[in-house]
């Protein structure tokens, strides 16, 4: 008796699920069929490819921006597009070999970890072209174009703005992992603050990074937002009121900590990196003083376009303030927090950097 009851119940619930499923299918499946024989868009005979490092294309950092650039190239230039995500360092070589047999004309590899693998693939496939993001070789290689950024230039301007805007006389920064592509932000930021101190005879301190010793605060990865929140709280406790996290998505942890501090009545601000945080992290836009932007997507699209047009060179692309490869974002909502004097000073500094009168140096700067 009991058993048959249970069986009935089971059957009943199964029937219920099945009915619900079928109903959902019916509702979703009522569209009209497209005309048979409508061909796809005419395929180009140019194939652009991209191989990520182990961060993957959803890293909210350089893999993602480079991927976006390829996607844009696919749309704008009508090229074929192939991508391969690496899950570990052992995948680099296999992914590149796969790309070679898939007939890629240009393969973009992302990050210094792929340096050796790209070099090997380039030596084995001298008829193919490569571009590597955020890495350059000591000796240039004929069919590899390095794409690097002198991010210190833009970070310098952000550091100046931060020093001019702080109320506590202390600004903070921290990184994800101590890589040259991270510390270059922090070096530039540090120098920008010092430039303000020198110009105005002030003593604004940078917490979280010391350029001379190349030591500072790091969260240890580009994933754990919670660690970013904790580090930011520590920086706030030490008196900083403007924070620049250089840690990809971990920056959101900094945003969360600052939001809490703001809710508690503190006047705090955030400086985003890589993209304009006002647009890409809108949940923190009321905190966003400015952003240090690296325009990787545009660079990737340009490299693809040049190669497609037969204008490939192995000369390094160096993103600078002069060619607009790096920049600082508008102040958006916090425009009123930055004085007109500071704005004109930043413009003057930018002009000096562009003209070469002012050289921002970092151990991590791309070698010319």
């Amino acid at each position, binding site marked *: 008796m009991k058993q048959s009851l249970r069986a009935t119940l089971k059957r009943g619930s199964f029937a219920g699920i099945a009915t619900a499923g079928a109903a959902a299918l019916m509702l979703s*499946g009522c569209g009209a069929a497209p005309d048979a024989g409508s061909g796809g868009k005419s395929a180009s005979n140019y194939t652009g490819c991209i191989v990520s490092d182990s961060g993957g294309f959803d890293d909210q950092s350089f893999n993602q921006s480079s991927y976006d650039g390829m996607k844009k190239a696919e749309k704008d230039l009508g090229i074929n597009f192939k991508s391969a995500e690496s899950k570990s360092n052992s995948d680099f070589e296999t992914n590149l070999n796969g790309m070679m047999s898939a007939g890629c004309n240009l393969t973009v590899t992302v990050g210094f970890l792929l340096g050796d693998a790209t070099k090997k693939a380039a030596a084995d496939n001298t008829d193919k072209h490569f571009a590597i993001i955020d890495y350059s070789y000591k000796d240039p290689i004929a069919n590899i174009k390095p794409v690097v950024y002198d991010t210190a230039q833009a970070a310098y301007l952000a550091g100046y703005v931060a020093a001019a805007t702080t109320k506590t006389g202390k600004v903070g920064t921290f990184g994800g992992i101590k890589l040259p592509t991270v510390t270059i932000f922090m070096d530039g930021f540090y120098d920008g603050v010092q430039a303000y101190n020198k110009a105005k005879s002030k003593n604004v301190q940078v917490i979280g990074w010391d350029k001379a010793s190349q030591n500072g605060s790091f969260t240890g990865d580009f994933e754990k937002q919670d660690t970013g929140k904790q580090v930011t709280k520590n920086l706030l406790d030490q008196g900083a009121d403007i924070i620049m996290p250089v840690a990809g998505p971990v920056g959101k942890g900094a945003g969360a900590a600052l939001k809490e501090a703001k809710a508690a009545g503190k006047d705090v601000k955030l400086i985003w990196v890589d993209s304009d945080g006002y647009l890409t992290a809108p949940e923190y836009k009321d905190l966003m003083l400015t952003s240090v932007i690296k325009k990787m997507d545009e660079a990737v699209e340009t490299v693809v376009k040049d190669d497609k047009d037969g204008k490939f060179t192995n000369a390094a692309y160096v993103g600078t303030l002069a060619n607009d490869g790096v920049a600082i974002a508008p102040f958006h909502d916090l425009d009123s927090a930055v004085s007109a004097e500071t704005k004109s000073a930043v413009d003057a500094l930018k002009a000096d950097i562009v003209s070469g009168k002012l050289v921002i140096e970092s151990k991590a700067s791309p070698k010319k």
Partner: protein
Amino acid sequence: MTTKDTNPEVEPEDGPGPTGESGAEVQAADVALDTAGGTLEPSLVPVSTQSGDTGHQQATLLRRIVMGNGFVSVLAVFVALVLGGVLIASTDPAVAKSAGYFFARPSDFLSALWGAMTKSYIALFQGSVFNPRQGFSPLLETMTVATPLICAGLGVALAFRAGLFNIGAQGQIIISATLGAYAGFAWHLPLVLHLLVVIVMGVIGGAAWGAVVGLLKARTGAHEVIVTIMLNYVALFLLDFLLNTEAFRRPGDNSPISPRLDDSAVYPQLIPGSRLHLGFLVAVALTAGVWWLLNRSTIGFEFRAVGANPAAARTAGVNVQAATVLVMAIAGALAGFGGIAQVAGTEKVLTGGVAAQIGFDSITVALLGRSTPWGTLFAGLLFGAFRAGAVQMQIQTGTPIDIVLVVQSLIVLFIAAPPLIRSIFGLNPGRKKRAKTAVKAAVATGGAK
């Protein structure tokens, strides 16, 4: 303390093995065996997983195949592949598009569904086993990728058999890779000697990292899961730190990546044109070695006795503390071979990601292999095939590589729940079967041959 030889309780001949007991009695005996009659907590690793022996001595051959753990593993893989296929299809744009007008032309939807599933698995197969263009060279790639997984998996499996959850393969790999790589790029030695030094350095590193765990467990009772997880962090951040020092970086380069290992310090290629290196043969030899250790040596017998019931083993004269330290040291050494396979085999440089997820995947490999040496070898090859094939799958069909990881995880999920698989396929054994399993477990833990 009596010696093992004078105590009959753990002698294989004296294991409880009556076949006429009722199911309930045998089940009770099984529990009692695991908890030493209720005086102990049940061991962390269930008795049934500690034994690799399927041991249905009285069943027919067919029944043994169908009911055996190995067959359940195969079915688990099959079910996971089917579910994975559904997932692949659901992420496929053609399928999604044709589902939108399912009732107008259902054939489109069905063919898109079938197309998406088969296309992906064909690419997976072509990337891992055989490809018309390249012949069997993808199989060589599978073997290459499997090498570190097999080595580390053996370490995890061995610890499992001794009742220890070794979550520390990751840290052991990192330490051995660090030491091995340093010997490989910083020292310049003659041809054969250099590779030997690299291997010895790495294995000593891994063994030491494992022995620390065994020592802490034996002397202080610290739980090996906590200790190994923490040591993984220590190893990882130690490596990060070292890669930021001049000694481990390339001259003139600020990136945290070591110089390449000397050519004399890496495993020789076995077959030109592939990445397959001598490390694979080392892994096979290690598998045989672990099999011998577990099934033919006194030490291995003691390991299994400790794993089945530490209290009984102690009573029987086994030095449980020494066995714990030794088994963790050997497990660490095996994982160390995995680290060497990475730096001296495939990557040839040391980076922060040198261990990837191998340490954690090796736990899965050991479980999938039912903690037996040969099972681990084949499970490692299966995982290697998934990894190697996944690359082709995403390049050829655009299937996200994450889907492959989902399939792998599903396999583990089904492996971990044999009753689920049995009920899906209507293979649920009756009372008779349960009785036999219990007897088998009792015999096995009493000291199978």
